[in-house]
Structures are given as structure tokens and as C-alpha cells.
């Protein structure tokens, strides 16, 4: 099941440059939340702070609190690896392991964690591929075809299956469909809709229509600050802040 995310006074830096300023947000469990805003507003940095990916870059720093379910993401005793196992991530450009088979791509995370039960592994791979709506298209060539042999849209769903295989509670998606054609985009969006039943989803997108289609809540970021966070219908029909309105109506950004 998905869990809620609570963000409190979150700040993030790249060297001396502050990328996020005092972000507070409560993300509802089992819903999709979209993060929108112009390039450089901090939206990707924000999601990368949710699973401690931000700190993997040199000279970065984070302060503030992120709580995912019961887990203090930046708590003293919380290992980053544990956080990332609970918070899966899908990136803009599909990045399957090119030399591995489809099966091994999905099983990679589990194998890395020392999982060896063959039969259980088969089950998890099938379940993950089914949840990612890819099973029917690849079931006959699971071990014959490589991840790289799939189309772009299939590769992205493979990456989603890979993220789901380690049974996270939260799925972060950073522009998951921006490199895909409309058909594949539609499939990913349908998938997001289904995945909400079991996961909490945070999706960064430049495509406002996409945010409107898939997310129940939307946050608008500008210059590292969260300007407005509300139900998606409210943001796209009657936002409270002038800056949100100017952005979504295309008057700047």
C-alpha cells in the first residue's frame, strides 16, 4: 500500500546555490501528486530529495524533514539504501540495463539484495511486468530479448516494472513520458492511474495537460519555492496565486 509523505522546512543546495527554500507539503497516500513549474524551479531537486538522490551529486546539502510513512528519510539512523528501496524512481529517459534480458532487468534489484528463490523470483517478475502493463507484450521473450531491444514506451514500462519489483511504497516519476509518443504516453498515464491503488505517486512534468489528466493534487514551484499546492482541478481552473495563474496560462515561463 502507498504511504503518505510529509515534507517540512525542506531546503536543498548545490554548492552555494540554494535550489529549494523552505518547502512544506503533505502528499496523500494512494494518490498521484504532480509537480509543475518552469525549468530550474527546483521540481526535480524536490523529488530527488524524497529518496535521498540529491545527496549523490557532489557538493550538495539538504536540511529539513521528510517523513515517508513512519520512516524519517533524513533521520540519523536511516540508511539511504533503505529509503531508495521504499521509494522507487523512474526517469525521463528510459534506462534499462542494455545487456540484460527483460527478465534480469526486472529481477536486478532483488538479485542485488541477495534474493535467490527462483520460483518466487519468477512470480515477482511476472507480477511486476503485469502491473506495468508490459507482460502480454514480452512474456514470450523474457529471457531471450534484451531490455534495449524494446521500443521507447516499452522500455519505460520495463523501468517501471523494475522499480515495482522491489515493492516500494512510493513511486517518483521525473518526466516519465516526455520522451515518448502519444500512444506510449497514454499507456504510461493509464498505468499511473492503476498504480495509484497500491502506490503513492509523485510525478514531475512539464506537460500541464498531463498533470491535469493523472494527478489529484498539484504543486507549483517557482525559483525554488512552493508557490501553491492544491487539488488539481483548483490549480487548473481557478488558482489562488497570481504567479500560478500566469504560469499555467502561459503568460511567463
Amino acid at each position, binding site marked *: 500500500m502507498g504511504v503518505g509523505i510529509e515534507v517540512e522546512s525542506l531546503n536543498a543546495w548545490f554548492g552555494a546555490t540554494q535550489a529549494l527554500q523552505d518547502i512544506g507539503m503533505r502528499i496523500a497516500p494512494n494518490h498521484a501528486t504532480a509537480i509543475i513549474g518552469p525549468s530550474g524551479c527546483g521540481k526535480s531537486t524536490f523529488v530527488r530529495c524524497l529518496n535521498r538522490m540529491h545527496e549523490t551529486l557532489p557538493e550538495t546539502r539538504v536540511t529539513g524533514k521528510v517523513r515517508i510513512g513512519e520512516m524519517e528519510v533524513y533521520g540519523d539512523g536511516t540508511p539511504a539504501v533503505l529509503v531508495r528501496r521504499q521509494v522507487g524512481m523512474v526517469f525521463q529517459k528510459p534506462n534499462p540495463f542494455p545487456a540484460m534480458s527483460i527478465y534480469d532487468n526486472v529481477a536486478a534489484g532483488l538479485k542485488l539484495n541477495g534474493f535467490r528463490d527462483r520460483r518466487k523470483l519468477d512470480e515477482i517478475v511476472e507480477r511486476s511486468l503485469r502491473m506495468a502493463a508490459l507482460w502480454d507484450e514480452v512474456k514470450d521473450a523474457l529471457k531471450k530479448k534484451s531490455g534495449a531491444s524494446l521500443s521507447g514506451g516499452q522500455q519505460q514500462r520495463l523501468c517501471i516494472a523494475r522499480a515495482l519489483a522491489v515493492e516500494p511504497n512510493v513511486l517518483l516519476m521525473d518526466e516519465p513520458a516526455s520522451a515518448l509518443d502519444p500512444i506510449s504516453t497514454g499507456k504510461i498515464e493509464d498505468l499511473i492511474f492503476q498504480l495509484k491503488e497500491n502506490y503513492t505517486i509523485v510525478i514531475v512534468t512539464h506537460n500541464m495537460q498531463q498533470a491535469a489528466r493523472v494527478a489529484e493534487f498539484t504543486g507549483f514551484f517557482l525559483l525554488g519555492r512552493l508557490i501553491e499546492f492544491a487539488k488539481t482541478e483548483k490549480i487548473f*481552473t481557478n*488558482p489562488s496565486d497570481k504567479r500560478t495563474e500566469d504560469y499555467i*496560462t*502561459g*503568460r511567463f515561463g
Partner: protein
Amino acid sequence: MRTRFQQGLDELREKLLKMGGMAEQAVDRACQAYRERDLSLCHRVLENESQINAAERDIDGVALDLLAMQQPMAIDLRFILAVVKINADLERVGDQAVNIAERVMDMMELPPAELPVDVPRMASAASAMVQRALESFIEGKAELAQAVLEMDNVVDRMRDEAFISLVRTMNQNPAVTRQALDALLIARNLERVADHATNIAEDVIFWVRGADVRHSFGIQSTLGGAS
């Protein structure tokens, strides 16, 4: 700044204002025809209806294109929805003017009768509502639109009074029943014009404030009166 989109919105606004002018003029002409028993004015109202209908289709076409091609959001989306609805109301205002002109033409085939109804007064009240509703659209001011909502009760009351006194006239003097019936229908048409003006004002409030005030004015004023 999305220049082409902005041009599209400006175009829509101008077309709607032109349409509003035509609808308003049609009502004024029909009422002038009533006052002056002028057949040629009636004919002009009937002839101009096709222009209003063409304008309605034109505006819907521009609005549909903007929705499909520009994916408007927030205040722009509300503006386009409001324009589409105001457009339909203005077309109906034009229809009411045609109905009035037809009643006037019918009355002119009959001997003039003294009737206990002040059609010109009712016409100027309804016409003022349309005019102010359009002003609130031009200015984008919800306060102006709000004032229009408050005027609707006045016209409703005039229609009710006309109904009572005209029915009495028909009973007391059956010889003028047809003229009284025509006047009654005109009063009803004018009351409908006022209703369309109210709808327009509500759509302006929706566009400007993002608030849906339809069907709530009576409730609010009742609550306000009780407190």
C-alpha cells in the same frame, strides 16, 4: 506571452461584443416598434435575426478552435466557457426580439386598445439589464454583474403585475382579448430577456472570480434578509 493565443482571445471578445450589440439593438427596435406601431421596424428585427444566428455560429467556431488548439487554462479557460454560454444567451435574446416583433405585427392588424401594462417601462428595464451585463463583460467587473442579478426581481415583478391586470382586462372586456394576449406574451418575452441578462451576468462572475453563482442569488438574498 502567447501572442497568437492572446489575439484569439481578443478576437473572441470583440466578436461577442458585436453580437451583444446586435441582440440589444434587436430588443430596442422591437420595443420601439411596439411604441410607434411601426411595421418596418418589425421587419428589420426579423431580417437581422439571421445575422445574429451567423454571429453565434462564428463565435462558437472561434471558441472551439481556441479550446482545441491552445489548451487554455484557469482564467482563460473560464473566459472561453463564459463566452460560449453568453453567446447562446445573446442568440436567445435575439429570438425574444423576433417574438416581440411578431406580436407587434399581430397587434397592428387589430384596432388599438388601451391596455393596463407599461411595456416601454418593462422594455427599458430588461434592456438596461442586457446593457449592464455586457458592460460587466467589457470591464471584467464582477461588481457590475452582481448589480444585474439584483435587477432581475424588478422585471419579474413587472411581468407578474402585467399578468394579473391583463387577465382582468380579458375578463372584463373580451373584445380586446387578442391584444391583451399579445401584450402578455410581450411581457413574458421581456422577462425572458431579463433572465438571459442574468445568465450573462452570472457567467461574467464565473469568468472573473471563478465562482459559480447560478441558482444561488435567491437563496443568498433570503439568508441576507433573515440575518
